[in-house]
């Protein structure tokens, strides 16, 4: 009888084609999550075979199974604690000798193992022949040659999995002889057996080996399980030093050495490499791609292309996808209670706010899709490690990593990136400290959403030096980001794990369309699933902060009065047109207002004469009387239309005023006012504060909120731009104020989408909060420095700008010389 879920794990070194095997075996039924506590991907898939259900887990690719990196710990712990029925060790048949190093470690864990010799096609092309029978005999493990890319060997692999899972295939894997270390292993094994129950849960020999290797995680297990742990561990320590003294090599070195010798030995008898010294194509390509001059040029080209395709073309693509999201919004508009003349039902306001928040995120999907596909191409082709190779020296000086290049480019090294894909692409950085540093600084780069405020302020206050100001704002963020990253790695990230740079430069490889698209879709889907839930929660909070406590009854009465006056005025004006006057009586007036709004927005979304005619027909048939006002034909119609427009304008003015007052009055508005004692040193008044606070959800709203606060008050101002209004309204707002505000915007906390990306990438709420709080303090400090400092020194805006630039440049260079502590030394 075969039933239940049988656990199968796939283990293997990086670049061995494990993902291809996983996809081929499980097909579409897979699921990606994170292993608890770490940001390593956990891929699970299911497979039905001969009536049994197998659960296949794709372990992270690792060269070894020590406990130094999260990937290795995850892979090892999974095998130790989940006890899979079968572990398939996927190997690159064209480079089998090296793969055996990991195979031996798996064998030592005494698990039912199958050796999959994958990529046989590549091996054949390179002239590598493998004597499978001999190999099986030497290892004592079932070996299955496959070429999963072409689906070859899949049937044999499944058969082997079934055979081992149900123990039809009982083989004893062969032990490696560790020579001089054997007596030590025996000693430790014996003691473990006598004093603990470890042997019932872990393979004893493996456990002893790990202790002799000095593995910390295994020592930790001893601490938990051994009654005299300290004594025993110090005994192991003396054994280790005794061995090292006698054999001039630490046990772990000796162990690795013996494994490689065994691999060498097996390779000699079962692997024939006909052409071992052929200068590979990869080496030739590297000669160009990593060349001192050509390398950086190619890198810049690749980066430009990536940026252009993902960010620029991606944004263009959103022009096509946005209408779909807009439809979602209009659907919500039609489903929620209709607005009154000045009363917006809370449910409606909330639903629309909610959908706007989600839409703002979903709007990124096309960008992400292109981006993830391109990243997959970079990964699969093997260019990614080369990129890190070229940039590591420069970024390494600031506590970053060669692999921080791509995230920083996407985040906006120059004006116009987007922090969300930037943060999302930090995944591959192996060094925890650099990865966190990169994630934390990306929001300080110049994303597209910061640009409107820059442009607004530059147009008003630096009009005479626009080009310089743009240059300043475009490049200053990099000069602040590098020292900040250095500072972070020297302080809060000081004790984070670092990893050696030691990195494989895999052979170049043509990516497959299926693989690239598959991964892009998978990652986009993961993003959508993770992000929407959190965004929903945060959107609610900000809505409440902006909406409540709302307007007092007294103020509402005031606006009601305004409404009544406006309506009375309208009726008085159209009394001359009895036909229209009757049509617009009572509730019909509000209906007309909504009809008008709908017609206007429908017209904006429609293009082409035919479509327009169809639209007009639709609205006409809905209500012919209303249509005559909306799209006037006769002279009378036109007059009523004009009056009606005035009414709508009056309504909008009331709505705007109410909105402004509601924001003023809201918790967020009060917060803005209560902050002025501090922010005035940075030159921000309460209006600026509120604008900045409201931008927490999305930076685009900073300008929108300023627009609402600096709204046209009198009729004369109505035709003025926001620039003119701001200039007129806020006396004493100088270029120095503007500079402080711009610099604050550079260092502004990440938008909602980014904070969530930070949460996803760091797997921690703590880092998410940190990423929001520290830029706020930093931004405020810089703004205060520039504003108060500039004021004290009597600098003009332009002088302060260059003074600050020089300061930032000097700090950046100085910071480049400060040494980071390397933990592995």
């Amino acid at each position, binding site marked *: 009888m075969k039933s239940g879920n049988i656990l199968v794990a796939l283990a293997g070194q990086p670049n061995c084609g494990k993902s291809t095997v996983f996809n081929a075996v499980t097909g579409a039924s897979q699921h990606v999550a994170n292993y608890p506590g770490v940001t390593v991907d956990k891929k699970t898939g299911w497979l039905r075979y001969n009536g049994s259900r197998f659960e296949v887990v794709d372990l992270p690719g690792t*060269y*070894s199974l*020590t406990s*130094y990196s999260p990937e290795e710990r995850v892979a090892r712990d999974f095998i130790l604690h989940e006890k899979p029925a079968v572990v398939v060790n996927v190997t690159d048949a064209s*480079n089998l*000798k*090296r793969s055996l*190093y990991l195979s031996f470690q798996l064998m030592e864990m005494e698990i039912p193992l199958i050796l999959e010799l994958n990529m046989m096609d590549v091996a054949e092309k390179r002239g590598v022949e493998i004597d499978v029978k001999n190999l099986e005999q030497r290892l004592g493990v079932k070996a299955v040659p496959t070429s999963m890319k072409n689906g070859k060997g899949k049937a044999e692999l499944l058969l082997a999995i079934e055979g081992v899972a149900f123990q039809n295939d009982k083989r004893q894997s062969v032990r490696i002889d560790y020579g001089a270390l054997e007596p030590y292993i025996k000693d430790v094994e014996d003691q473990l057996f006598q004093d603990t129950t470890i042997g019932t849960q872990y393979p004893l020999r493996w456990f002893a080996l790990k202790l002799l290797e*000095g593995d910390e995680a295994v020592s930790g297990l001893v601490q938990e399980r051994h009654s005299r742990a300290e004594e025993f561990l110090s005994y192991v320590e003396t054994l280790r030093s005794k061995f090292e003294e006698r054999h001039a090599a*630490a046990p*772990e*070195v000796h162990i*690795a*050495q013996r494994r*490689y010798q065994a691999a060498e030995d097996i390779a000699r008898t079962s692997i024939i490499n006909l052409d*071992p010294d052929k200068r590979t194509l*990869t*080496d030739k390509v*590297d*000669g160009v791609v*990593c*060349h*001192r*001059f050509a*390398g*950086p040029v190619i890198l810049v080209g690749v980066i430009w292309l990536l940026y252009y395709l993902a960010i620029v073309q991606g944004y263009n693509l959103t022009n096509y996808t946005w209408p779909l999201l807009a439809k979602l919004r209009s659907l919500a508009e039609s489903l929620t209670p209709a607005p009154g003349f000045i009363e917006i039902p809370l449910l409606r306001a909330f639903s629309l706010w909610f959908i706007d928040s989600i839409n703002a995120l979903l709007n990124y999907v096309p960008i992400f899709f292109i981006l993830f596909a391109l990243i997959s191409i970079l990964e699969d082709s093997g260019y990614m*490690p080369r990129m890190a*190779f*070229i940039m*590591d*020296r*420069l970024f*390494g000086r600031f506590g970053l990593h*060669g692999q921080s290049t791509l995230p920083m480019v996407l985040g906006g090294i120059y004006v116009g990136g987007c922090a969300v894909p930037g943060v999302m692409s930090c995944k591959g950085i192996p060094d925890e400290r650099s990865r966190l540093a990169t994630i934390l600084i990306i929001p300080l780069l110049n994303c597209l959403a910061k640009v409107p405020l820059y442009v607004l302020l530059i147009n008003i206050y630096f009009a005479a030096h626009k080009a310089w100001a743009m240059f300043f704002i475009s490049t200053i963020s990099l000069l602040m980001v590098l020292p900040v990253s250095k500072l972070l790695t020297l302080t809060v990230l000081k004790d984070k794990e670092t*990893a*050696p*740079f*030691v*990195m*494989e*430069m*895999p*052979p170049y490889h043509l990516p497959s369309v299926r693989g690239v698209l598959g991964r892009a879709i998978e990652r986009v889907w993961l993003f959508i699933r993770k992000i929407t839930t959190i965004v929903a929660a945060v959107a609610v909070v900000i809505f409440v902060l902006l909406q409540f406590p709302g307007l007092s009854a007294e103020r509402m009465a005031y606006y009601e009065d305004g409404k009544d006056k406006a309506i009375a005025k309208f009726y008085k004006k159209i009394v001359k047109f009895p036909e229209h006057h009757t049509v617009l009586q009572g509730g019909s007036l509000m209906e007309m207002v909504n009809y008008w709004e709908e017609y206007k927005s429908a017209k904006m979304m429609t293009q082409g004469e035919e479509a327009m005619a169809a639209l007009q027909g639709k609205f006409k048939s809905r209500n012919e009387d209303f249509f005559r006002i909306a799209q006037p034909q006769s002279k009378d119609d036109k007059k009523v239309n004009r009056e009606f427009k005035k009414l709508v304008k009056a309504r909008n003015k009331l709505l705007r005023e109410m909105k402004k007052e509601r924001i003023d009055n809201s918790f967020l508005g009060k917060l803005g006012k209560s902050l002025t004692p501090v922010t005035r040193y940075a030159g921000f008044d309460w209006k600026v504060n509120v604008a900045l606070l409201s931008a927490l959800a999305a930076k685009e709203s900073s300008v929108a909120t300023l627009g609402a606060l600096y709204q046209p008050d009198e009729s004369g101002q109505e035709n003025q731009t926001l620039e003119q209004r701001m200039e007129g309204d806020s006396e004493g707002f100088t270029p120095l104020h503007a500079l402080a505000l711009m610099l604050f915007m550079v260092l502004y906390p990440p938008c909602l989408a980014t904070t969530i990306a930070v949460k996803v990438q760091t797997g921690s709420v703590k880092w998410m909060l940190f990423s929001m709080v520290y830029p706020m303090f930093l931004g405020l400090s810089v703004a205060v420095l520039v504003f108060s400092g500039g004021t004290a020194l009597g600098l003009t805006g332009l002088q302060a700008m260059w003074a600050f630039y020089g300061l930032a440049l000097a700090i950046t260079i100085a910071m480049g010389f400060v040494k980071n502590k*390397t*933990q*592995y*030394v």
Partner: protein
Amino acid sequence: MTLDQIKPGSHCRIKKLSIGNKLGQRLMDMGVYSGIKVKVLRNAPLKDPMELELDGYCMSLRHDEARFVEVEVL
């Protein structure tokens, strides 16, 4: 002599790793162990890191890390 002093284009043989810990383990896991032949392919455009070829594949490491690998020039 240590690996970081080897000129691009030269071959050498690993004699000893003078570091344990994470870096040593990582180097061993990547196939850097005593007795194996290594060719230094090139330095990165900014001089660091360096690219090696050993046993039919390529890897990169920083000069700071290569300092811990004792070699003899072939």
